[in-house]
């Protein structure tokens, strides 16, 4: 998403693909998956920068995003479908329609 944009609850998003070797708070199993914004949690210095003694500014918006476990795990799902809720920074999110 464009830095500074604000996503409303209910906005469909896709988590960016990617496999950084550096510090990253976005769980690998959610990358490339589609979810829905639950709410904005506020702006926070970027932990991917803080982790290397850099200031992490400008602060990034952090969102609670929910996912359908059936969509995340596919045929690996072993139990009744449930909701997965994860905190994901804005630079890991893109519009749900965009190519992953």
């Amino acid at each position, binding site marked *: 998403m464009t830095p500074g944009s604000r996503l409303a609850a209910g906005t469909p998003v896709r988590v960016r693909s990617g*496999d950084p070797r*550096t*510090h990253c708070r976005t769980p*690998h199993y959610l*990358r490339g998956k589609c979810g829905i914004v639950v709410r904005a949690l506020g702006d926070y210095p970027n932990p991917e920068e803080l*982790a290397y*003694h850099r200031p*992490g500014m400008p602060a990034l918006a952090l969102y609670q995003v929910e996912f359908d476990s059936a969509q995340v795990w596919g045929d690996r799902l072993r139990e009744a479908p449930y909701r997965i809720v994860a905190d994901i920074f804005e630079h890991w999110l893109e519009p749900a329609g965009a190519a992953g």
Partner: protein
Amino acid sequence: MTTGAHAVHDLGGDPAGPVDREEHARTLFDQRVDAMLRLLAHPQKGYFTVDAMRRSIESLAPVDYHALGYYERWLRAVRQLAIERGLVSAAELEQRMTQIAQARQASPQNMPGQDRQ
């Protein structure tokens, strides 16, 4: 798509047994490591952040990551970050460790930290 290989700490979706929900008693060692982190990462000191701690722990070799206890991982990270930030050099640490080991050998009953493995 999710990727096959992932960082050692990023366990979601991996085969695993039940989660151990038992409380564990804190040892003196655990408390000392916790105190070191809190002092060094305190905003008024700001030698490093909890984010840097996480990065350092996540960078452990998988064999170490799985073999070490929770606070042992912390201690490895505190050591690495203290060196990164120039608070102490690896040589100074080794020298001090040798001194402590020698003192302990000479007079084991007087050494602090007897709970350490």
